[in-house]
């Protein structure tokens, strides 16, 4: 599985390693990462953030993660809440 950018990825899926690309592969990439989150609350928060960042307002994505002044403030509450 390889991500290229918003709505663009390449992935091999299923037992026969069928190759898909495009939006479906990108959505699968998000799905794999959702599986890695620890609880339902974190997953819901991630889905909301992804919907906003990647689908609803892609040209207004936050750059907070890169800002050294904000880097210590987690965007996802890993302990649930």
């Amino acid at each position: 599985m390889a991500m290229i950018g918003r709505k663009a990825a390449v992935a091999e899926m299923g037992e026969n390693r069928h190759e898909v690309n495009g939006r479906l592969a990108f959505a699968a990439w998000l799905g794999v990462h959702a599986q890695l989150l620890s609880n339902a609350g974190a997953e819901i928060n991630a889905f909301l953030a992804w919907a906003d960042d990647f689908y609803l307002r892609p040209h207004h994505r936050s750059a907070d993660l890169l800002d050294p002044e904000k880097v210590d403030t987690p965007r996802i509450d890993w302990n649930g809440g």
Partner: protein
Amino acid sequence: VHASFSSTATRARTRTCSTKGSLTFVVIGGGATGVEAAGALGELAHDVMPHVHENPALAHGHVVLVDLGHAVLAPFSDEAHEYAAKQLGRRGVELKLGVSAKEIGSDHVTLSDGSNHPHASHGLGAAGLQAAPIGASSGLPQGRGGRIDVQPDLSVEGHPNVFVLGDFANVPSGDDPSCRSSGASRSSPATGRRRTSWPTSRARAAGHSSTRTRGSWR
């Protein structure tokens, strides 16, 4: 990355000269990691940062992806190669294939085709790594990329005291039937034995386990 966008925006505000080239990122390696990094930087330069710093100079952000091979995402199909190249191009990423990086300085990157990217503020290494060639001389069975074939408990078949870790190990994947069955039966020597009773004389070959990134998933 954030700092270079900020400083370019600041400099562009105080000077009238063109800042073209001052926001050049050279990503070295066209595997999954390099493609993801280049795509993300391209989107950052063209979609995200212009709204953070409202300065037209940021549109000059330039991403170059360098790989010695003939295609990006080489392990995938030709169709995927074309798709990835097209998508990267759409994000303003310049592909330089069949080319390697010759020199990375603090403010420039020189490529093997002689082209020089002055003011390249960032050279990003995303090239693949291979564990030391000691694996080939060990006489143990080797799989993909010269990695030593191991069982799900990381021991080598027929050598219960030899364990292989990190980039040295060709670990069976989760959908491999042999992985499922032995995991269920717990018949492997390492899991059946308590940690403290492991023989201290066991041989171990350790690579850089930290180099397996999420980008390397297939």
